[in-house]
């Protein structure tokens, strides 16, 4: 393994990300922050929502922002770089195994997901105003969740970016990602779905359910959530699966 080359690949992605920083932040964070303000502030201040909703919403917003930032950071460049222009060729010819080029993409995505998380926590907190009862009493659980969610975003971005073409991006978002977010327990705990028993079990195939429930379990443990051990095991398994699929697809796309 050639660490210098790996680091150079990572620096290249970091350089490009820094250049597009403002644009990326606006693209990934504005909508969730507006949503936070409307549901977490306006509706709670007006009495439509209970103040406790803030504690349900904040971890969900953090997770969604991390996932979207990471997925987009990996998938979008991959989709365009593997297209007609073959921009990625330069990196495929770098003196490093092809799989490490893919792993580098995942790591770059993880870093972007974590940065998005770091930015969104204080800003969403601010947008909600007073009454947020988030605690960091379980730093290990929080760290584990951040890592697993970031890996989910990076590996998911790799698998997605190597599976779809440029023309399918819009469709992918409205057909797959939007339902995943809505049924991913970001804006409500999984236990709230008990009045819809079929749906409650169907959504368990959605990785975002574990991501959101786990983040809620780490930050707002008083809100009912799926057991942390189950969450962490499920998410870790999903991450490994996506990573394996992503690496295979990347290799297939990279070699003629």
């Amino acid at each position, binding site marked *: 393994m050639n660490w210098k*080359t790996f680091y150079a690949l990572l620096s290249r992605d970091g350089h490009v990300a820094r250049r597009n920083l403002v644009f990326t932040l606006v693209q990934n964070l504005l909508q969730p922050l507006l949503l936070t303000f409307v549901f977490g502030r306006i509706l709670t201040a007006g009495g439509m929502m209970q103040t406790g909703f803030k504690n349900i919403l904040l971890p969900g917003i953090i997770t969604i922002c991390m996932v979207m930032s990471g997925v987009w950071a990996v998938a979008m460049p991959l989709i365009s770089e593997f297209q007609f222009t073959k921009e990625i*060729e330069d990196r495929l010819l770098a*003196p490093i*195994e092809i799989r490490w080029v893919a792993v580098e993409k995942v790591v770059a995505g993880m870093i972007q997901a974590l940065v998005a998380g770091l930015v969104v926590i204080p800003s969403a907190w601010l947008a909600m105003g007073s009454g947020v009862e988030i605690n960091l009493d379980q730093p290990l659980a929080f760290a584990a969740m951040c890592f697993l969610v970031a890996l989910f975003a990076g590996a998911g971005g790799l698998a997605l970016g190597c599976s779809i073409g440029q023309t399918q991006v819009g469709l992918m978002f409205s057909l797959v990602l939007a339902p995943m977010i809505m049924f991913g327990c970001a804006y409500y705990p999984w236990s709230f779905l008990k009045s819809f028993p079929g749906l409650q079990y169907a959504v368990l195939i959605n990785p975002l359910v574990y991501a959101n429930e786990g983040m809620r379990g780490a930050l707002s443990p008083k809100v009912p959530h799926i057991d942390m051990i189950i969450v962490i095991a499920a998410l870790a398994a999903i991450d490994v699966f996506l990573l394996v699929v992503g690496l295979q697809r990347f290799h297939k796309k990279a070699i*003629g």
Partner: protein
Amino acid sequence: MGIGIRIEQLRKVYDSPPPAFAGGFGFGSARGGPKNKKKEKKKFDVVAVDNISFEIRPGELFGLLGPNGAGKSTTIGILTTRIKPTAGRAFIGEFDVWQQQVAAKQLIGVVPQRPNLDFALTAREILVFHGAYFRQGASERKKRAEELIERFKLTDRADHMVRGFSGGMMQRLSIARAMMHDPEVLFLDEPSAGLDPQTRLLLWDIVRDYNKLGKTIVLTTHYMDEADALCNRLAIIDHGKIIASGPPADLKSSIPGGYLLRVKFDSMPNGLIAAFEKLPGVTEVRASDHGADIYADRGGSLIPAVVSAAQAAGTMLSDVNIQEPSLETLFLHHTGRSLRD
């Protein structure tokens, strides 16, 4: 000093349309809908490289010459680790390009047929990051990037994003990038396609200079003059097979007679071909559509004899085209087709 290349019975069969790596595979996608996938896969069986073996000596400037779709880009793709061969082996120096990819990649620089520059970076950044991928130190890569920018006349646009570059500028930058890490072997796939004549000469100079440093250079081209002017040795490739190889001069002198007269007539009476064969200086005659290809040691001075023979056989000469000894004639001699067909 110098790194050689060895190819042993290399074969590549595409069972699905190849990813558009460098383009130029010469066949379109034959894919229909997603139904009958298995059946369809079987139907698509294109032999791009058909059991070829050859060796490129260290420090040689070697050319692969052939029409579009001949298998040149696939051969380059395999040698540069980008395409997996169906059978056979290829070596850069002592390294098997498929088994020891990283070691092989360290030795090579690649200029693709279509520029594949990193659009997220400026010209200078492209060079500097490329150097970093190849583990050059910070000051070394900065210095080398600056030299190449100057050499390739990109100074004015060095700090611009490459998205807005013209085709020629992108091509120049692609070549600069391939030379950035000072590779022992430089691959250039159709390097002068789309270049203006001036830039083409600049490219030739740069390629020759780089070769003088003892570096091995492999280029593909379908321009005869380029192959003739640049290469120490050539392999002529068609339909995935090597049909002739050797130094350009040897190849040209191997054409029977040297000159080629492509003649056409109003009609083709029997015995006309035999009559041509008896003419002095003619070494070979082949029938063609409404005419004949006559290989001879003379060009224009043979025409009166050809006209007389035609008149004696009761037909009239309608068209004549004289070709001097060239690689074009050689290609035609071996394949019966013009390079541009």
